[in-house]
């Protein structure tokens, strides 16, 4: 048959799937690059955008912790107000009652979300703790991403014994359940800190949980990236680049890396969400952020100890954590849908 092979293929398995734009033969359809297409699809997903904005607002609020502390609540996260009183509905109320029970959310400028049993302002502690949680979460995710990209590229590109060794190491780390490994490392490093050659990190620094979390999650990202590099490597454009005399570094960064971007983006959002949750779990157990530093995990931990008398101390940091991770997950889902050209069900909105 000598008719033009670039004919429109109507896919019957996905009747809802669009005829690919640009392949609508006959007319010159303006081809949109995959990233523009993805952005357009993402833009149409109002839920994802809304939650993405929510996440940014939460981050913003936490970063603005000092502003809230100084100008609204007029206190610091560590300041005790055990014996203070505040005015509520015209009456004077003890911040911490004589029985040791702190007040719940007042919805006023001071003690907006209540106080803890040391009389400290929960909202202020929540925001400051959030800074740590977010710093660790995003920081760990960034480190994991960086390490995974390097490891995945090197293993996938060079193959052979390099890949063999890397794969075995990844498998071994992956064999540990995340919590167990995180706890083990967290405990071990909390005791003596970390010394890597000239760099030494104290056991109390929040860099420790960040490094631990980053390390633990590397296989979860490096393995899929490696698999993708392995398959990309065989494609013609890589061969063409090699024929042009490009060295391994150039191939890895100019040919392979751009094709990994969508996978990396999707994984990154997931990683931040998981890192925040893992940090909370580790801190809850005492193997993460160490006092006097706070994080949402440590707040929940101390809250649970007093749950019978002051449930708000548990509920508040938990809800904050839930909202943050949820917004990341919904947004991440939206990113994944936008980047995936074969969405399972796509109807007009």
């Amino acid at each position, binding site marked *: 048959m000598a008719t033009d092979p670039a004919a429109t293929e109507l896919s019957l*398995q996905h009747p809802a799937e669009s005829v690919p734009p640009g392949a609508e033969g006959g007319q010159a359809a303006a081809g949109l690059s995959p990233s523009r297409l993805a952005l357009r699809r993402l833009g149409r997903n109002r839920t994802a955008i809304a939650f993405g904005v929510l996440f940014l607002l939460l981050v913003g609020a936490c970063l603005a912790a000092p502003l809230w502390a100084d100008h609204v609540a007029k206190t610091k996260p560590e300041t005790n107000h055990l014996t203070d009183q505040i005015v509520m509905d015209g009456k004077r109320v003890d911040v911490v009652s004589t029985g040791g029970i702190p007040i719940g959310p007042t919805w006023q400028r001071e003690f907006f979300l209540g106080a803890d049993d040391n009389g400290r302002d929960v909202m202020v502690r929540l925001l400051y703790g959030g800074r740590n949680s977010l710093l660790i979460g995003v920081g760990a995710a960034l480190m994991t991403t960086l390490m995974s990209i390097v490891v995945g590229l090197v293993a996938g590109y060079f193959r052979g014994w390099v890949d063999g060794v890397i794969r075995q190491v990844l498998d*071994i780390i992956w064999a*540990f359940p995340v919590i167990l490994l995180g*706890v083990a490392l*967290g405990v*071990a*490093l909390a*005791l003596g800190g970390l010394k890597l050659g000239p760099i030494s990190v104290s056991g109390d620094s929040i860099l420790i949980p960040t490094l631990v979390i980053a390390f633990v999650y590397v296989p979860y990202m490096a393995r899929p990236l490696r698999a993708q590099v392995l398959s990309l490597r065989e494609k013609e454009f890589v061969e063409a680049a090699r024929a042009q005399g490009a060295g391994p570094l150039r191939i890895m960064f100019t040919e392979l890396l751009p094709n990994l971007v969508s996978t990396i983006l999707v994984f990154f959002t997931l990683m931040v969400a998981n890192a925040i949750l893992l940090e909370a779990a580790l801190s*809850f157990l005492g193997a993460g952020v160490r006092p006097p530093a706070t994080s949402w995990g440590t707040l*929940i931990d101390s809250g649970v100890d007093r749950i019978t008398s002051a449930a708000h101390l548990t509920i508040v940091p938990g809800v904050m954590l839930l909202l943050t991770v949820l917004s990341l997950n919904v947004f991440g889902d939206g990113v994944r849908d936008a980047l995936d050209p074969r969405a399972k069900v796509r109807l007009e909105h």
Partner: protein
Amino acid sequence: MLRFAVRRLISMVFVLFAISVLVFLIFNVIPNGDPAERLAGKTPTETEINRIRAEWGFNDSLPAQYVTTMKKVFTGDLVSYFTRLDVLEEIVKGIPRTFSLAIGAALLWMITAVVFGLFSAVKAGKFADRGLTVLALVGISMPVFWIGALMNHYLGFKAGWFPNGGYVPITENPFDWAYHLILPWTALAILFIGFYSRVLRSNVLDTINEDFVRTARAKGLSERRVLLKHVLRNSMIPIVTLWGLDFGAVVGGGAILTETVFDLQGVGQYAADSIGQLDVPPVLAITMFGAFFIVFLNAIVDIAYAALDPRIRLQ
């Protein structure tokens, strides 16, 4: 099939060895400072530190240290310098509790996830699907210890519908055993239900569009049969392996949070308590055994996968 199983078990042994080395490095080598001091606890005396150093061979070469550590772990010669209790004994006491929690939760989450996932996929795009997706996303965004604590407090303590934590051995009273575990099972399952129902939904939607499902419909088979025998059977294969891995992960350490919140005194809680005290020997032992269990379970899962998917085993 047998050859596959044997090969798999052999590679497992190698991985176990590598894991033991890693655990050894984590606890005795990587951290800064004196390992003997670390082990000795909060306020050790000089003599105690020296005794520990001798016992564990910290003055010897690294390989010798490794051998000593492994011997201690596997012969049960481990004692916590805090509690003075024999580590292995405590672990053995905790195992049935951890297993009860893990198995119940695993069954619960699997069955629920399959139902939700399949339902979601069949009603894809409609309101029911969106609703379940939201629930699933909330489920995976919640810290399990938080929701567990809240459930325990509101449903157990305040409402009195469920016991307020604690564990009853199955040999004593099976009903009570289950009654005490309902809340922990649910708390632990929520996260996994959220994750698995979405994975299953995605697999089912992928499979539903496959050619062989079209063929099945063209054969005039009932929709139910198409869904169950063709779609589900194929979508489940990757899920079963994931399930095995996660079950292993839960037993091997993932249960740590739930056990603590509900005071089940399982292996996980033992680990948590030890962590709080920075008591190394129990954490070392639990990490080792936990990882071993997982690797072993992974091998079993691989073998099961081969049993389920004839393409794997016959090639």
